[in-house]
């Protein structure tokens, strides 16, 4: 499956954006995953879903709603942190390694249409604005 993923067509995204973060010990950190995690009462992800769900910092009762059968799910079943390392972030915050854990984290389903218009013009900027509203400085991305 990795060799298939390696050959997936990718768009031209232009110049690489670059943001210099504040020191990690002062930074607020959020997780953005593409594992299609969600809460039980959230809308389910569909097979071509480009939207995201919000994962509150304190919740651990997350479901994996991904449509693809092509990645391992047993790791998530055994340990949420192998996909969504929220407890590890809490430990890093308690030790002062990171400044704080963001109140909201995000889950996409890893889908994108050929034009990328939904991600680039809609859900991507919406997600970024939500993270900015929470004063997030650093995002850890965990694709599956």
């Amino acid at each position, binding site marked *: 499956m990795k060799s298939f993923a*390696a050959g997936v067509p990718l768009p031209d995204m232009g110049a690489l954006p*670059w943001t*210099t973060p504040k020191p990690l010990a002062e930074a607020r950190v959020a997780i953005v995953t593409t594992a299609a995690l969600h809460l039980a009462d959230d809308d389910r992800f569909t*097979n071509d879903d480009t939207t995201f769900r919000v994962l509150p910092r304190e919740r651990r009762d997350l479901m994996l709603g991904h449509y693809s*059968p092509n990645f391992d799910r*047993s790791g998530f*079943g055994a340990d949420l942190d192998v996909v969504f390392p929220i407890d590890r972030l809490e430990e890093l915050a308690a030790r002062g390694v990171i400044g704080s854990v963001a109140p909201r984290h995000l889950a996409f389903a890893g889908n994108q249409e050929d034009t990328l218009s939904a991600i680039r013009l809609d859900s*991507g900027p919406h997600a970024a604005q939500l993270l900015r509203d929470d004063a997030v400085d650093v995002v850890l991305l965990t694709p599956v």
Partner: protein
Amino acid sequence: MCVLSRIIEAAGIATVALMSVREVAERLPPPRTLYGNFPLGRPLGRPGDPEFQHDVLARAFGLLDAESGPVLADHPVVIESDDVPMECALPPRYNPSLPPAVDEALGLRAAFDRRLAQRGVTSVGRVLTPDDVPDALAALARIADGTKWKEAGLVGDPVRVSHDLRAYYDEAAQELVDRPPDAGRFEAWFYEETEAGRTLLAARAQMQEQEAPFPLWFYMARATR
């Protein structure tokens, strides 16, 4: 994920990505990538191993010190995944009047319920409740035996049904093994050792034979199955 990283970075938030496919990070680089040669679905590498997960995070956050990018670093540990089925006891045949997969699923219900009580949440629920699992397997058994897939009584999108069945078995099995097995071994156990896995693959093959729409049967199992 490469696209999202760039959108978020452009909004003024520094990003670091944990990628398991190096070629993607090379072709459309996120600003900062830690490549881990880990099984897909386990970006932190090892379930139940906080020390290893902290090592991954320390290396990833260390990339934030770079002054320009793209930055692509490799985690030094390679986690291989083989396809030898894990060892996990399955219930003995109890009611011979039922299709084997139905009998098996009923026998695993206690383990599933213990896991659910422990975690408080299940990923079963796309279209099935845990109570629906035996009926769904009975419908798949009918398809496997040649009944037309539309007439077999399968409730809901077959792909979603398949995901729910996998989740039911995965969650029950988590309760029956000592520690999380390698990624490939869990999947091999389901498809090769369980009646449910074999029934699902047989039904999928029948649906292909019956010329069901491609997305409805193909995505019922991993592409390589």
